[in-house]
């Protein structure tokens, strides 16, 4: 019992770890600005390159001890744990790899929200300041590694990205690596000239609309389609339930009947057994004789029913009643 309990706790712990890792794998680079002259200002009043990451999962994700890098890190297969290797690498090469420190609540990303890191090489300013910078006029690569060294996401920002423009996902979080390489078609350059190309650090790249509502408003303005479909679904669900329990009811009735018949047979056979013992042939012969003599079946052919009149002179009320004297 104790062992089972420990196993169960371990299982739950492993599953929760897995769930947490699942959440971190749902983080995506979402928008980045390399040369920031007139855009976002950090808490010290300075402008610098910034990188926005989107948590596309429906749970809060803690980013502590994850790694952000400006070049791909090849983790050697020398038996050293990837996490330890990256840890050491981040200490030795802060200009390349940044480990997000522990203990800062700012690095927890709420479901479906964004986090913005400043790539200013000033990691002493706080957990949201990377230890490396982005270089204007050059291709900038960004890699996000999980705590255990798994590659979560990567993006290559083009060299020709103008100042104060961003390289952003067209739709928030809508990109996946294909064989470890970014899907370039999901990205676009945004210059902030209009709503469609607005620069949106910490906010959604596209205007959030409930597509379902817009769709129904446009395609089904009177509500006929949704009403018919919904009624069909309600009817189908309850009809299935109704049929299922009608069948259960039938089966239950049949089972009850079978039990009742069995009990009846056992009851009827008892007095016959008293005469014939356990000799099956004798029992069958007596039953057949009785059947023929009385033609005594009621509902089911082949099953004998002995209806004994329980009333005797001792118990019957009518038998004990005296007749009133007849009037002459």
């Amino acid at each position, binding site marked *: 019992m104790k062992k089972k309990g420990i196993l169960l706790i371990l299982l739950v712990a492993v599953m929760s770890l897995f769930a947490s890792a699942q959440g971190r794998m749902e983080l995506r680079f979402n928008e980045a600005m390399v040369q920031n002259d007139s855009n976002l200002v950090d808490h010290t009043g300075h402008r610098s390159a910034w990188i926005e990451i989107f948590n596309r999962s429906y749970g809060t994700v803690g980013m502590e001890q994850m790694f952000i890098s400006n070049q791909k890190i090849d983790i050697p297969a020398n038996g050293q744990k990837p996490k330890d290797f990256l840890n050491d690498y981040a200490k030795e090469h802060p200009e390349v790899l940044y480990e997000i420190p522990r203990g800062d609540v700012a690095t927890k990303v709420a479901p479906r929200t964004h986090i913005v890191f400043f790539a200013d090489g000033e990691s002493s300013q706080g957990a949201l300041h990377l230890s490396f910078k982005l270089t204007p006029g050059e291709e900038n690569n960004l890699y996000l590694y999980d705590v255990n060294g798994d590659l979560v996401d990567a993006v290559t920002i083009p060299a020709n990205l103008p100042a104060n423009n961003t390289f952003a996902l067209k739709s928030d979080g809508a990109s996946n690596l294909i064989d470890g390489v970014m899907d370039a078609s999901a990205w676009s350059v945004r210059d902030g000239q209009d709503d469609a190309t607005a620069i949106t650090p910490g906010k959604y790249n596209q205007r959030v609309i409930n597509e379902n*509502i817009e769709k129904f408003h446009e395609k089904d303005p009177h*509500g006929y389609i949704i009403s018919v*479909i*919904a009624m069909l679904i309600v009817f189908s*669900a309850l009809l299935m339930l109704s049929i299922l329990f009608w069948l259960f*009811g039938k089966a239950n009735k049949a089972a*009850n009947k079978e039990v009742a018949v069995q009990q009846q047979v056992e009851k009827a056979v008892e007095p016959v057994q008293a005469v014939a013992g356990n000799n099956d042939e004798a029992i069958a012969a007596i039953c057949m004789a009785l059947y023929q003599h009385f033609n005594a079946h009621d509902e089911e052919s082949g099953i004998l029913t002995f209806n004994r009149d329980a009333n005797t002179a001792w118990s019957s009320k009518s038998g004990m009643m005296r007749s009133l004297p007849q009037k002459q």
Partner: protein
Amino acid sequence: MVLLESFLTSNLEQFWNFTGFANCTWPNLIMICFGLLFIYLAIKHDFEPMLLVPIGFGILIGNIPFQPGNEIGIYEEGSVLNILYQGVRQGWYPPLIFLGIGAMTDFTALLANPKLMLVGAAAQFGIFGAYMIALAIGFMPDQAGAIAIIGGADGPTAIFLSGKLAPNLMGAIAVCAYSYMALVPVIQPPVMRLLTTKKERLIKMKPARKVSKNEKILFPIFGLLLTCFFVPSGLPLLGMLFFGNLLRESGVTTRLAKTASNAMTDIVTIILGMTVGASTQASEFLTADTVFIFFLGFCAFVIASCSGVLFVKLFNLFLSKDQKLNPLIGNAGVSAVPMAARISNDVGLKYDPSNYLLMHAMGPNVAGVIGSAVAAGVLLGFLG
């Protein structure tokens, strides 16, 4: 002396500005009158007192005028009322109420005659009829869906769905749903009489068969699996409803079933009613939308009652003479347990004092609870 006088004056002035008298507006007073009316109806006329007393008192609480910024109001983050209100906003309370409903509902009448489930399904047309009217009036589909669910005649379902689809209308929708549920004895009988002939009202239904314990245990399990595979978005309500019912029927969790159906439901009902009432602040409640919501709620109730009764009449065309259903049980398809079933019984007894329809009407009545939760799940799936 002068200093003391000015000190006192400024403090009294500050205190006066802090009081409800200084901050009172006409809409506040109108809402307070509404709250008093609800309390009066509940206490004097016994209209759904368990709900209208907490809601009515909640309206008083929510409409006491005060200076904002002191973490007092229900919409001020961090206030006690706001913390309690999160259960409504986030949809925690309705599923808990459904757990209690499941634990106190006996589905025997439905299991004895499973075809009555279809009556519960038919009555849900009230929801979609009201949805179409709401769209015609000019509501957006999500708002129309939230308002239309009033036709399900199920308070927790209405709060759950409106909290998800149209939180700004939730107060008005909840008050409307509970008000019309209290008015079921007024709304339904004329509709039932209008749509049935005297001969139909006299139909005597076959006594219900005996339902085994196994069937009662299997119902919540298969009910959950079947309905939630169809409509996963109804899981919070249906899951809790069937879970509560399993606690009741399993026979081995009587203590849990008792707690769920008594103490827990009472606690949640108190908090839910009070916070929903308090959320009906004048600025949110006294709008043209509220008038439309009450109109649409009425339409939804009438359509739901009509469709239930008419469906039974239609169904009778396909049933043998000894299997025929009394159309007076059709209105009970609109949830509102057990009020709607009692109406069926009362109207039936008026025409034949020996025709007790209560147990027959309980079938569609409890099917209506399932049906309205499924309908809410469908609307949430489409519009959420």
